[in-house]
């Protein structure tokens, strides 16, 4: 019975998170077009529903009923497998994100943490492991299409993801050193008590009133954000897609639901990256002021609201960057990744670890 209650609660939590992520993906497709339009002094989609708010539903129906084409020269197995390979890792990472406070609730005699699906002790590594698998979908999709533009897009994606994944991994090491844990829940809990204790400022680690300066994670945060934009293949790092030169890269031959899978994977990855950035650097569900304003159970939902605000802030930043910056050239991309971001991330690790070693 206990096992059953626990499993049931877990399934409900997973379902809620999945539905929320899928809805957010739908909202983002519209939000991106609207935000881009407003930044370019246009109106964006206006036809379907008032102010075009039903556009995601129309898009979804269109993609669902489109003819599913597999090119005759394509490798059927890998062509079908690639969208799934890129979609699953994008969703699986949400399992370890703490969406709210680490509280326990008794339900039929079983302790359940309502705002956390699971707290595994290697949380952040688990996310890194699965995001690195997402690259296979892109590479295999490009290869299986039997199209030279797709193959080029896939190979570019491989090189880009490997290069920038390294920077993502190195950028978060400072946070891990400060928190002394790989668990996302522990990392979030250690940033309680207001904006100054968030890892991006870093005063919450008991290093005195002035000595927090060396452990501030601003550099780590900036490197993480830039590298994660590159890892999600977003502008200005969207060389694997590069609409104007590779006609959408690895996605050229895809249509209908398979294309929708790639599309959903890209947006789900954006949400996941924003969630991780919020938890690691911006205190997760903690408010910028100490404690919560609302009492009791309402306070938990205040935490979730702050988490949502932070995630949407990051997502807006993704759109903003897309509207502002032109695409990099391929050699610029590689030089920037290896010669600018990598040394910055390494310097951040060295400074943080020396400061923690001598000051704690």
């Amino acid at each position, binding site marked *: 019975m206990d096992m059953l209650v626990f499993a049931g609660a877990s399934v409900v939590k997973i379902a809620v998170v999945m539905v929320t992520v899928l809805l957010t993906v739908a909202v983002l497709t519209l939000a991106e077009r609207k935000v881009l339009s407003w930044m370019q002094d246009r109106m964006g989609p206006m036809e379907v529903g008032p102010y075009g708010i039903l556009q995601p539903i129309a898009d979804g129906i269109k993609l669902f009923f489109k003819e599913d084409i597999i090119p005759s020269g394509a490798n059927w197995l*890998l062509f079908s497998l690639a969208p799934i390979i890129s979609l699953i890792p994008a969703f699986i990472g949400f399992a370890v994100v703490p969406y709210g406070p680490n509280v326990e609730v008794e339900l039929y005699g079983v302790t359940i943490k309502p705002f956390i699906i699971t707290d595994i002790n290697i949380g952040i*590594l688990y996310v890194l492991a699965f995001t690195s698998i997402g690259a*296979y979908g892109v590479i*295999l999709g490009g290869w299986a299409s039997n199209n030279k533009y797709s193959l080029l897009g896939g190979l570019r994606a*491989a090189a880009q993801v*490997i290069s920038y*994944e390294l920077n993502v991994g190195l950028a978060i090491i400072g946070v891990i050193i400060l928190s002394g844990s790989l668990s996302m829940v522990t990392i979030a809990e250690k940033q309680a008590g207001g904006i100054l204790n968030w890892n991006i400022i870093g005063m919450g680690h008991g290093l005195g009133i002035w000595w927090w300066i060396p452990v501030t994670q601003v550099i780590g945060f900036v490197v993480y954000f830039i590298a994660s934009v590159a890892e999600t293949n977003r502008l200005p790092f969207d060389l694997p897609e590069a609409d104007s030169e590779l006609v959408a890269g690895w996605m050229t031959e895809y249509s209908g639901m398979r294309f929708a899978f790639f599309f959903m994977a890209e947006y789900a990855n954006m949400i996941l990256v924003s969630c991780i950035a919020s938890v690691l650097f911006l205190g997760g569900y903690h408010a910028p002021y100490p404690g919560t304003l609302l009492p009791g159970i309402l306070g938990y939902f205040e935490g979730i609201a702050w988490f949502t605000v932070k995630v949407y802030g990051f997502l807006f930043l993704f759109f903003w960057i897309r509207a502002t910056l032109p695409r990099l050239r391929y050699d610029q991309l590689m030089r920037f990744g290896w010669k600018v971001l990598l040394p910055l991330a390494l310097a951040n690790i060295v400074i943080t670890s020396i400061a923690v070693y001598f000051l704690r």
Partner: protein
Amino acid sequence: MATLSFFYFGSVIVLTAILVVALRNPVHSVIALLVMFFHIAGLFVTLHAEFLAAVQLIVYAGAILVLYLFVVMILNLQQDDSYQRQVKWGLGLGLIALAEIIAIISKVALPEEPASGKTAAGEAAETIAGNTETVGKALYTTYLFPFEVASLILLVAMIGAIIMAKKGIMGPEAK
């Protein structure tokens, strides 16, 4: 439950490992290898070594195998059946490996197992300390020298790769 998952992971690992060498299409071989890496990570998880499982996926599946895929795609080996002709070599090496496995299994399986209680205690201690810390402490105390030697070898390999890739680095005449 633990035995069941072990046999699941073990059988999939053996099956996919055979597929890696048996499949004709090299890209399919790489996919089989990817599935195998996943199941090896699963074995680590059943042993409560979650850190090793994550590293297994990040390093092997996330980085090394992507490079394999890269090379396989660029070389376009689809019609190359040359490695199917190495049956004699394969048989010889396979027999040696088989003899080795039989020797190991007969040594391990024959005596009764007095060590079972000890491993359970060690496992419990590891889960308390957190296996990431355990691995880190072992690397920087007991195995410090091998660890440093390994990093030196990797550094040498890296420099070697750079010199081989950059043809003009040895002087102007190499251009």
